[in-house]
């Protein structure tokens, strides 16, 4: 016969296309973490005293905390003293104001990643903030957005230019002491994106941030804060890549979303950090805290994530449904192949009346990949008539991979409804043979089955991202067909 079942393991041996390194002069602090490093970062960014105080307070809390061990992931201890906490391209020293002033090396890097920065070439209607290691390189369409009253800038700029908003909302969703990695991030975060949508404003374009880790031995600790004021609407996308190398690198981000009365935030992620090689060497540790607060009545937050990268993913984009009638959604596709490990899911905390949440999680495991869904649905006493629907599906490719589901449900209210459905399936030889018999090649057949499995999530992504996500997932053969 022309092919054998073990070919399936070869299907997943696709190439990581974003694995190049940009040779650029970087300005980095030596590895290590102490108060001086934090002061250095704060000073480098010209931060006001309150910001530094906030960082130092977080650092003091972090020193008393220990690394959590409950996730279904395995990794050797991370030496946080071996990481450099600040690294920026030298050419960024005097923050460029326009595209013409940005180092061409950097522009080329983003071009290579498929993100043209010249505004006329860009996808009309998408503004981009580019974060390269520890700094934001440039934010496009800033002026155009400002006309609508929308603030979209790097986090560092927001601290200087919009201190009242930052002070009011920073840490209000993810407190500094929330967890070990969030506390660490609060102490040492270097940049990220800041978004404010004023009252009754529909953001005129998609906003996006592209995170790139480039330097060796650095960690990326970014902070994203999005505030949707009453009656506003915004769709935000983030993408991430990193070079291929043998060392693991830590990425510990914090994302806070605040939706006030009748506001809606749609947050989409295509996470493609370097996953490590086929023997499990290298890759990013992606330990991220993402949380949204539906603070106002009728607020809505929708998380959509496609997680194909990282050696280890540990994140639970969550919603606190405080406002009455508020809505939380979580749509996720997580792929774990080779030796990747993913422990991801969501928390839906129902506090307000008539709050609703939907969770659709699709886990794909291939090779030795381990994929865990971990979710919490908590319905508080006051959350009368709250409703949740959860669907967790796992797809196994090959016979060495694993899928795990850890759903937690806490209901303290008798008028609420909680539904949970779960399934585990394999790409069966029957499905493959069926499609091949119709004339479809085996690699196309696998892609078709995997994409079909993820369809409910992909349809939630903005168009350009849906295409990108499908491409990422399409597990190409690279000439390995037997």
């Amino acid at each position, binding site marked *: 016969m022309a092919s054998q079942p073990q070919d399936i393991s070869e299907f997943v041996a696709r190439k990581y296309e974003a694995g190049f390194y940009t040779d650029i002069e970087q300005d980095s602090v030596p590895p290590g973490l102490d108060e001086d490093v934090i002061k250095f970062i704060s000073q480098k960014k010209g931060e006001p005293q309150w910001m530094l105080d906030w960082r130092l307070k977080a650092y003091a809390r972090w020193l008393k905390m220990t690394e959590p061990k409950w996730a279904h992931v395995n990794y050797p201890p991370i030496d946080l003293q071996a990481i450099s906490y600040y690294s920026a391209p030298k050419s960024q020293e005097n923050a460029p104001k326009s595209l013409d002033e940005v180092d061409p090396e950097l522009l080329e890097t983003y071009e290579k990643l498929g993100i043209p920065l010249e505004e006329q070439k860009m996808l009309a209607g998408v503004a981009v903030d580019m974060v390269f290691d520890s700094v934001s390189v440039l934010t496009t369409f800033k002026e155009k957005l400002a006309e609508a009253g929308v603030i979209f800038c790097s986090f560092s700029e927001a601290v200087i230019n919009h201190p009242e908003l930052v002070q009011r909302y920073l840490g209000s969703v993810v407190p500094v002491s929330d967890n070990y990695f969030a506390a660490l991030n609060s102490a040492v975060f270097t940049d990220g994106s800041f978004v404010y949508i004023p009252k009754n404003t529909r953001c005129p374009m998609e906003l996006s941030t592209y995170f790139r880790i480039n330097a060796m031995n650095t960690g990326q600790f970014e902070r994203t804060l999005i505030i949707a004021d009453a009656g506003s609407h915004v769709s935000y996308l983030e993408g991430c890549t990193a070079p291929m190398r043998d060392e693991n690198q830590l990425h510990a981000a914090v994302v806070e979303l605040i939706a006030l009365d009748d506001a809606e935030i749609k947050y989409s992620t295509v996470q493609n950090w370097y996953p490590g090689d086929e023997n499990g060497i290298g890759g990013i540790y992606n330990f991220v805290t993402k949380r949204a607060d539906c603070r106002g009545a009728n607020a809505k937050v929708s998380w959509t994530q496609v997680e194909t990268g990282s050696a280890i993913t540990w994140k639970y984009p969550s919603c606190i449904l405080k406002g009455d009638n508020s809505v939380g959604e979580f749509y996720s596709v997580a792929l774990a192949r080779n030796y990747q490990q993913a422990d991801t899911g969501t928390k839906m905390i129902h506090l307000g009346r008539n709050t609703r949440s939907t969770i659709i999680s699709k886990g794909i495991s291939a090779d030795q990949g381990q994929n865990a869904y971990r979710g919490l649905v908590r319905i508080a006493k006051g959350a009368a008539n709250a409703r949740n629907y959860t669907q967790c599906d796992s797809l196994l490719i090959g016979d060495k991979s694993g899928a795990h589901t850890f759903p937690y449900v806490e209901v303290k209210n008798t008028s609420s409804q909680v539904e949970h459905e779960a399934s585990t399936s394999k790409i069966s030889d029957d499905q493959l*043979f069926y499609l091949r018999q119709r*004339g479809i090649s*085996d690699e196309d057949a696998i892609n078709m*089955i995997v994409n079909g499995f993820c369809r409910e999530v992909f349809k939630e992504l903005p168009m350009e991202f849906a295409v990108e996500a499908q491409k990422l997932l399409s597990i190409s053969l690279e000439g390995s067909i037997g």
Partner: protein
Amino acid sequence: MLEISNLQVAVANKPILKGLDLSVKPGEVHAIMGPNGSGKSTLAHVVAGRDGYDITGGEVTFNGKDLLALAPEERAGEGVFLAFQYPVEIPGVNNVYMLKAALNGLRKYRGQPELDAIDFLKLVKAKTKSVGIDDGLLNRPVNTGFSGGEKKRNEVFQMSVLEPRLAILDETDSGLDIDALKAVGDGVNQLRDSERSFIIVTHYQRLLDYIVPDFVHVLAGGRIVRTGDSNLALELEERGYDWLKDETAVA
């Protein structure tokens, strides 16, 4: 067109086909009948290229090409189509989308240009009408949540769109009510022409009321033990298979 000679096939070291010969010429309809476990489905699967069978001897050629050396999608490209006994569900994959990928896969194999969406939809529309399949099925995920009858009709619909040179129907009649059976029969009859051949694998004679075969073969104990015309099917319906078993045992 299809030449099978002395085909021997084992599954997990257990011989299933023990020297099977079959010759199908263009335009012919052959019915393969036989008791449970006689190797009928094995024959269908081996011709279509399913994994998991050890071919221990013999050969299968299709228009002169060694069929056994080709991958399933290449055999499809050569014009072999299998209507499955148990069509498999593929959640999330739109039926028409799959069919378009399939048709263009075949066209690519044959060095023909791909059909664009408009031409393809025209074709689908025409075939929908001629097969009499419910439009609603077309845009549902492949076989997902289909009834038994809907799955079989979908197989016939796919066959009519893909226009194979040799169609093998593997117990397409099983589990069908009389209306569905007739629809399947009509679908096949519409496709019959002097170039296209069919192998109808079945247990019962009843499908052959609608599709009148040129030859009826009885497969028992891994070999074709008797060949006749459509009257043989009627005889089998009346007398069962046991008398043949006795006869072959004697022989």
